[in-house]
């Protein structure tokens, strides 16, 4: 990583005696898109506010764009924030909102005007909106105005605090696409807080998972998804099956035993085991729902699960089955078909490849 745009080391944040952030060390590369995920109250907003300069840090250091941010007010930082509730100025028109950072920088009117129009185009907003007030726009349009305002002066770092959480799915999808497009287009670094895993996976170069004020895992989306650091990350990121198992180290790999899972050769290679798993003892086997498939009569797989269909949901592109197996409910997603392969109450066999298994600490 060439000189990072953000370099946070050992950041702590106390609200009174309550510790909201502990030992946050993080680097964001220039032009990188980092997604910040974690359960509610884990400190995502706090971290963003520290980056933006709205909150002081209690300990640690923060360098953005090569400068130590200690004592530098929000107004002088190379960051720009998009607020969860957008925070568009209700008394300013769309044009005034978007042009506000340039207006503050005392740029000539013509320059502001050009920049505003450029942003308008970039955000697919109509020119007739320029003289409207924010409350005269739809939610998605307001969203884009907020983005436009934060990007108009081409800040090196853009901080987004769940700006899309209030939007409906379809609008969200198109805005996500636009965001990705913008990111490629403008080369700004993004730190994007979201609750939505799919969004994080789709947009981010790397995902940072937080829990109770700490970073639990920081890595590429596939790494987070397929190689979660622990059961928390595995469970937080998407639907997943975590099956209790016992593991014992055998040479380079691990041997495991699991009541529910019947494998021809219960062996995991070293990279199929999270670092936190003890050399011998309890672990959980993670199986993503889409890794399972229905085994037709007579067919076999490296690993199988036998159970009964509890429920199923037709979701269009996929069908989700919930299957009772040895007292546990297993979730399976299979590609959608017009004829249902199994119905409620049917006895089924599920198969999966041994290589898709991943063990995390229990």
């Amino acid at each position, binding site marked *: 990583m060439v000189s990072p745009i953000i370099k946070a080391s050992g950041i702590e944040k106390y609200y009174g005696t309550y510790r909201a952030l502990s030992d946050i060390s993080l680097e964001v590369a220039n032009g990188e898109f980092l997604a910040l995920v974690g359960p509610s109250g884990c400190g995502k907003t706090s971290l963003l506010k520290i980056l*933006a*300069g*709205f909150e002081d840090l209690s300990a640690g250091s923060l360098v953005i764009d090569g400068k130590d941010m200690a004592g530098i*007010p*929000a*107004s*002088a930082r190379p*960051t*720009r*924030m998009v*607020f969860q*509730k957008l*925070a568009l*100025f*209700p*008394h300013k028109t769309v044009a005034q909102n978007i042009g*506000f*950072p340039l207006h*503050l*920088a005392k740029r000539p009117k013509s320059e502001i005007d050009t920049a505003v129009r450029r942003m308008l185009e970039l955000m697919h907003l109509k020119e007739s909106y320029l003289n409207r*007030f*924010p*409350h*005269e726009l739809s939610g998605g349009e307001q969203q884009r105005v907020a983005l436009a*305002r934060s990007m108009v*002066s081409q800040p090196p770092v853009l901080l987004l605090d769940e700006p899309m959480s209030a939007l409906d799915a379809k609008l969200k999808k198109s805005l996500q696409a636009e965001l990705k497009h913008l990111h490629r287009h403008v080369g700004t670094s993004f730190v994007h807080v979201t609750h939505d895993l799919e969004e994080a996976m789709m947009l981010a170069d790397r995902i940072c998972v937080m829990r109770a004020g700490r970073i639990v895992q920081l890595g590429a989306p596939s790494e987070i998804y397929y190689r979660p650091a622990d059961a928390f990350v595995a469970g937080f990121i998407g639907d997943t099956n975590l099956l209790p198992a016992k593991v014992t180290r055998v040479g380079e790999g691990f041997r495991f035993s699991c009541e529910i899972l019947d494998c021809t050769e219960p062996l995991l290679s070293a990279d199929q085991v999270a670092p936190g798993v003890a050399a011998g003892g309890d672990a959980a086997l993670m199986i993503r729902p889409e890794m399972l498939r229905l085994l037709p009569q007579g067919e076999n797989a490296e690993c199988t699960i036998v159970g009964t269909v509890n429920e199923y949901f037709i979701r269009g592109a996929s069908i989700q089955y919930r299957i009772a197996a040895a007292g546990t409910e297993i979730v399976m997603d299979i590609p959608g078909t017009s004829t249902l392969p199994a119905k409620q109450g049917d006895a089924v066999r599920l198969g999966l490849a041994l290589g898709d298994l991943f063990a995390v600490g229990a």
Partner: protein
Amino acid sequence: MRLSTLPLLLLMGLFFVIPLIMTALLSFQGTQYYRLVWTWDLKVWTDVFSQVHYWTIMWRTLVMALICTLLCTVLAIPIAYGMLHRLSRWSDHITLLMVFAFLTDAVLKTFGWVLFLDRSGVLNGTLEAIGFPAASVNVLFTPNATMIGMVYNLLPYTIFTVALSMARIDGDLVLAARDAGASRLRAFVEVTLPLAKPGIWAGAVLVFVLSLGVFLEPKVMGGGTSPLAAELIRQSFETRVNWPLGAALTLVLIVIGAAALTVFGAVALWQARRVAND
């Protein structure tokens, strides 16, 4: 017109329009021997329009009210802002103190000011103790003292209305302005101030109306040498027992007040057009 507005209309009629009509009718009567006589003539009104001093006092009242409104508004904005943002930890205590001061009898407060501002009062005593010449603040019994009293007694109205409207502003908006590169002052000017305008206007109107009717302050703190409209009206009613004259002067004051408010309102409306109500 809907039926549900009827009670409101009746109430307004009862408490506002009817007394106003009665006042107007009263102004066409006469007095004789300290008693009202029903004459139905314009004597009082010709009197009102031919006497310069009534208008001197009305004009003075209007000017004082405008200055007071301006001062209260200008003072209330930083005070309210400070209470909410800079001293937010103490804002409950400050509010409590202000409520106490506000609820304390105006008479007591005004007399307190007399003791404070007097040549031999607390202020001058303190100043003298730290080396200033004796009686260096000679403000009591001047129009300036009246203004001090008016501002002191009416300031809470503006502070409360302004603080109320400032408290309703989403804090993120100010952060967004700061984030966009605005200094604290700039963020205040660009965001807080325009969004607090409804409260600022409301406070200003309230104080203006109240200050048109101030009575105690010019009399007690101002030393009675520059009487304002309320004193003039009181004198007409009470000392001269000339109710028609008092009624006419009351109407004049109401009209002046209403005219000023209309101008206020026009400006405020024009402002409100710009501050889209969100």
